[in-house]
């Protein structure tokens, strides 16, 4: 495209921000691109996003609003980080002709540094760093101890109460019903629970569209972004997920093979699901 074909814009503001600035690992958060240009602009198509290779893209929404002689383009990307640590994002860019000078320009937003908080331990940089790194672990241990103490106290109170009741009314014998401690339900499903669900769905309906949905789900499970091919995903798969390689390959085949081969490819997927480590 020649420079003459670029849109003529007077850029007033171009920013890239994250909300929250310091998200948690595995939690969805927003990246916001705001571009304010002078005048009424109906559409802006050529904002180039920074490469989000360390983030999983979950959604993308674009709007343009007009007010007081300006047009405001907002793009909100819903993303998720799968690893703790610092992520440096390059600026978003916009190619346009500057309406004031008539020159083709490449506008850039600010770069962005995101610090993803998470469970993963990092090398200690200092004594403060040790504390910062261990704080979530220590908090969990403290919570666990408080929980155990509270449980023991509750049991002791209940035992004393029952003994007192038994003394008062010896004719009534309360059967001692063992109450198993229920594990607290986790906030999200585990990896294998999600895989089991995906396998169940595929077994129930063995069609190409279901295969594709299951493929998307399994790719999401290993943190694959929409811009990664299978080779990209396999190249950076952590050791923990290496047992998913045959499954990822089988799903790739089932998603793109011929109609004649589809039933056999789906059976391969089902077998691969069964072979995933419990």
């Amino acid at each position, binding site marked *: *495209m*020649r*420079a003459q*074909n*670029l*849109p003529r814009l007077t850029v007033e503001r171009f920013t890239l921000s994250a909300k929250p600035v310091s998200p948690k690992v595995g939690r969805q958060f927003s990246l916001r691109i705001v571009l304010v240009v002078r005048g009424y602009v109906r559409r802006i198509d*050529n904002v*180039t*996003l920074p*490469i989000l290779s360390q983030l999983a893209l979950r959604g993308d929404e674009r709007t343009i609003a007009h007010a007081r002689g300006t047009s405001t383009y907002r793009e909100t990307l819903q993303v998720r980080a799968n690893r703790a640590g610092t992520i440096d994002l390059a600026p978003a860019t916009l*190619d346009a002709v500057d309406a004031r000078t008539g020159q*083709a320009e*490449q506008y850039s937003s600010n770069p962005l540094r995101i610090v993803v908080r998470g469970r993963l331990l990092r090398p200690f940089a200092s004594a403060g760093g040790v504390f910062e790194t261990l704080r979530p672990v220590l908090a969990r241990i403290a919570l666990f101890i408080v929980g155990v103490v509270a449980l023991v106290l509750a049991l002791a109170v209940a035992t004393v109460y029952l003994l007192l009741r038994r003394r008062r009314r010896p004719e009534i014998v309360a059967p001692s019903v063992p109450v198993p401690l229920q594990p607290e339900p986790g906030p999200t499903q585990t990896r294998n629970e999600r895989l089991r669900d995906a396998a169940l769905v595929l077994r129930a309906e063995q069609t190409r569209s279901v295969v594709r949905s299951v493929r998307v789900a399994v790719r999401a499970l290993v943190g694959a972004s*929409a*811009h*990664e*091919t*299978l*080779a990209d995903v396999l190249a950076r798969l952590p050791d923990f997920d290496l047992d998913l390689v045959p499954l990822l390959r089988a799903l*790739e*085949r089932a*998603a*793109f*093979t*011929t109609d004649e*081969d589809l039933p056999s490819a789906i059976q391969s997927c089902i077998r691969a699901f069964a072979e995933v480590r419990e």
Partner: protein
Amino acid sequence: MTATPQDVERALKASIVGQDAAIEGLLLAAIADGHALLEGPPGIAKTLACRALAASLDATFKRIQFTPDLLPADIVGTRIFDQQSARFDTVLGPIVANIVLADEINRAPAKVQSALLEAMQERQVTIGPESHALPDPFIVLATMNPLDNDGTYALPLAQMDRFLLKIDLGYPNVEEELEIIERYAFAQTPLPQTVAALEDVRRWRAQARAIHVDRKLHRYIVELVAATRQPSPYVLGGASPRASLALVNCARARALLHGRDYVEPDDIRSVAPAVLRHRIAFTHRLVLEGLSPSSWIDRAILGVPVP
């Protein structure tokens, strides 16, 4: 037993150290019935790779060294008057071969380049009143040296577009170069043995044409090519629909090379740089700002969501 493309790939890798990507590119060109442009500095086995491909396929091989004084008749052929029979006899040029190495294609003037590229397109040459069909398979492998541009004639974009692939060859890494020294310091580089016949190549082409490409992948290909046409201060013109067709054919050839009868997104992503890099016209601003066409293309490709 019929030979497979993998047999040829193994034979080539046994002869040529490193350059696996180039070997795959040559095989893709052979399977997809296209021509390839090889670009790289001197001394990195460009010519050897072409000779080795011909040897492994039992194909006729001709090498034409392009120079500024070359004439079209030097490559296509000419008619010579025979005094004894008192008539003109046709002498066919070196282009009549299964595999033709057009060495340093950018050193010949436009007239000669056009004669070669016309033969590549039409698969026949016309000498005087007679047309002569070129053999099947007919593969032109043209080389260019990116470092030494003095006295060269750059190929116009329309002619570059006729090459199915542009294969960039780089220097080998340290381990590969050590292996080259150990193997070939005191010996002539051996060509591989014949492992397949020309009939096999024709069969592979038929198989590749039958390889399944899902409609979602067709859309992915179109989106990749469209990404090269997006407004950018670095690009004068993006890739043509011929690039989309080349992407489909190369992806099919790669699927066959990997023993599959269907194309995966990885096939397309893998061949896209080689198919697109010579079909885009870049502005001088790209180089002035220290960027390279390859990095721009990689970024454009990575920006397209994978189905």
